[in-house]
């Protein structure tokens, strides 16, 4: 029942303003794809174009083998869950879920069966006769998902559906969505600017930036091998620290970079001859650092803020040249703000970004 989605050379312009520029993407049947990016990057617009709520300027969209961008929204075989849920306030939960089926003249007993089945899956069967005004945010969210499920669509489209929920409920609903995907095996596209949602839900993440797709990959590919400085800084919490490179020396195992006056970092990265060293930086994730004794090699970090998360401790500090670096220590760390500690960096975990923002990684898996 579900189907693949092919987006071919999609461009969207509002007068002279380009919102999406030549987007190409193929989503496999049954895949859970997350569009991730900052506000205004075009991710919601792309989703709305698949739904048929926005026209496309150029290109085409296919679901299965059928071109659908010329069809009205109701005939595309997709169901959408909105950020605001967009339930019909004057209808009960049951009527909300049944409305779309009544429009296409599905038999009443079939409507009842689908509504009851979906309600059971989502555990909202006791809410079927309530109107949205008498439901909590989480319950409304389930009704919105239920309304999508009963249509048995070829693809589910989610437009930031968790952003109106509180943190605890968001976490729980995220888990339930993942389970729902496993259970239904449907093609799902999920738009979010929350990287945790993207990392936990997606089979593949599509990172969008400046009206283009910046990178497509599995969550771990995106996290470990970001293609650009933008992706590296956008994905991961805390964000990757970027240290300006003063000098690069080729060694037998890779390059060693000199970080301003702060010291040198040995890496396992091999740089191509055409590498643009102007404004190049080395990127380091907090978990790839370790607090070591002062006799060992590393960079001296003066701690400004200590963030204790229980299982680990994040150390926000500055190097001797004033560059910011976030390091990580164990949960039982004794480090205090104001102290200076020596921090070592794993040579295989660093990333180098050239002047154009392109990434260079160690060839060795971390």
């Amino acid at each position, binding site marked *: 029942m579900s189907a693949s989605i092919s987006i071919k050379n999609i461009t969207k312009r509002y007068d002279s303003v380009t919102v999406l520029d030549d987007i190409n993407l193929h989503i496999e049947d049954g895949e859970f794809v997350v569009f991730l990016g900052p506000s205004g990057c075009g991710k919601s617009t792309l989703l709305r174009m698949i*739904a*048929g*709520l926005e026209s496309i300027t150029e290109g085409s969209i296919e679901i299965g083998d059928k071109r659908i961008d010329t069809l*009205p*929204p*109701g*005939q595309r075989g*997709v*169901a*959408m869950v*909105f*950020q*605001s849920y*967009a*339930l*019909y*306030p*004057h209808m009960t939960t049951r009527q909300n879920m049944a*409305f*779309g089926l009544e*429009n*296409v003249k599905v038999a009443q007993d079939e409507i009842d069966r689908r509504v009851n089945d979906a309600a059971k899956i989502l555990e909202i069967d006791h809410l079927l006769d309530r109107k949205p005004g008498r439901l909590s945010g989480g319950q409304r969210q389930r009704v919105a998902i239920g*309304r999508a499920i009963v*249509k048995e669509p070829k693809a589910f489209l989610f437009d930031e559906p968790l952003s109106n929920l509180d943190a605890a409920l968001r976490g729980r609903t995220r888990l339930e969505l993942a389970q729902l995907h496993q259970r239904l095996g449907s093609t799902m596209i999920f738009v979010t600017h929350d990287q945790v949602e993207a990392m936990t839900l997606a089979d593949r993440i599509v990172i969008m930036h400046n009206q283009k797709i910046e990178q497509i990959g599995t969550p771990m590919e995106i996290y470990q091998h970001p293609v650009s400085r933008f992706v590296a800084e956008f994905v991961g919490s805390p964000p990757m620290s970027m240290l300006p490179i003063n000098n690069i020396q080729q060694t037998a195992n890779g390059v060693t970079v000199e970080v301003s006056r702060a010291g040198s970092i040995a890496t396992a990265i091999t740089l191509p001859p055409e590498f643009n060293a102007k404004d190049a930086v080395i990127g380091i994730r907090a978990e790839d650092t370790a607090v070591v004794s002062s006799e060992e090699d590393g960079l001296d970090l003066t701690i400004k803020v200590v963030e204790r998360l229980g299982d680990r401790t994040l150390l926000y500090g500055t190097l001797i040249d004033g560059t910011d670096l976030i390091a990580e220590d164990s949960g039982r760390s004794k480090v205090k703000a104001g102290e200076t500690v020596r921090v070592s960096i794993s040579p295989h975990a660093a990333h180098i970004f050239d002047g154009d923002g392109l990434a260079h990684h160690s060839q060795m898996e971390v």
Partner: protein
Amino acid sequence: MKALNYSPEHLTSNRRLFWIAAALGVIMMAPVAWIIGLSLKDNAELLKGTEAVFSFPYTLVNYANILESSSVFGWFMNSMIVAVGQTFGVLLLSSLAGYAFARLEFPFRKTLFIIVLFGLAVPEQAVIIARHQMFNWFDLHNTHIGLILPNLSSAFGVFLMTQFFRAIPKEIDEAAMLDNTSTFRIFWKVLLPLTLPAQATLGIFTFLQAWNDYWWPLISATKSDMYTLTIGIASSQTNFAQSEGLGFLGAQAIFASLPVVIVYIFFQRHIVTAVSGGAVK
């Protein structure tokens, strides 16, 4: 939640406000009480002096006279047909126009909306001669349609409904579109029910305005069987009505205002909401 203030200064200030409001209430209600008093007195007694209002006996003879008069019921029915017809017409047209202005894309939409709003600034008196001639040409005077038609294009109604439709999140329309709903069905089944509060407000105002309307029926309804209640009652005032038939006039006025009072009692909450302009949830 704001804590209740029981300080002596606050209570004194509240008491003062209460007495001011009570005094204003008395001033407002005095003429109504006076008319009720007149309506319950025999005309002959009132002829001697209106101070008779303050003393027994009281009588329902004036109301009985109304019920015996065949004209009053005819006028009442005319008023009812005009007020109900106008109310339904205004609700339908204003809702359709409001939906169109709020949701549909069509050429000159903004310009047309501004032109409609200009209607709020044009007094009825400014167009009355042209309207009279037009209705005369089409032979619509002395008909119910002729009494209903002129006020169907309510600039206020279109404005109110447009604003109300605009306030409904567009995601609701979009969800309906994804539910394979036609544009008319989105209007009729999804959005229109959500505008019920605005419909109630507009309906009440339109009904009250139509019921109390005097100016246009005075021009259009020249035959006594087409009089509305307001015109009919006014026509009952003969040269000596204000001295010889005061009780009967009072009873007619009370009789005429009954539907308005009933509407007000039943829809009081909506009227208060309408007057407060949505500031009170």
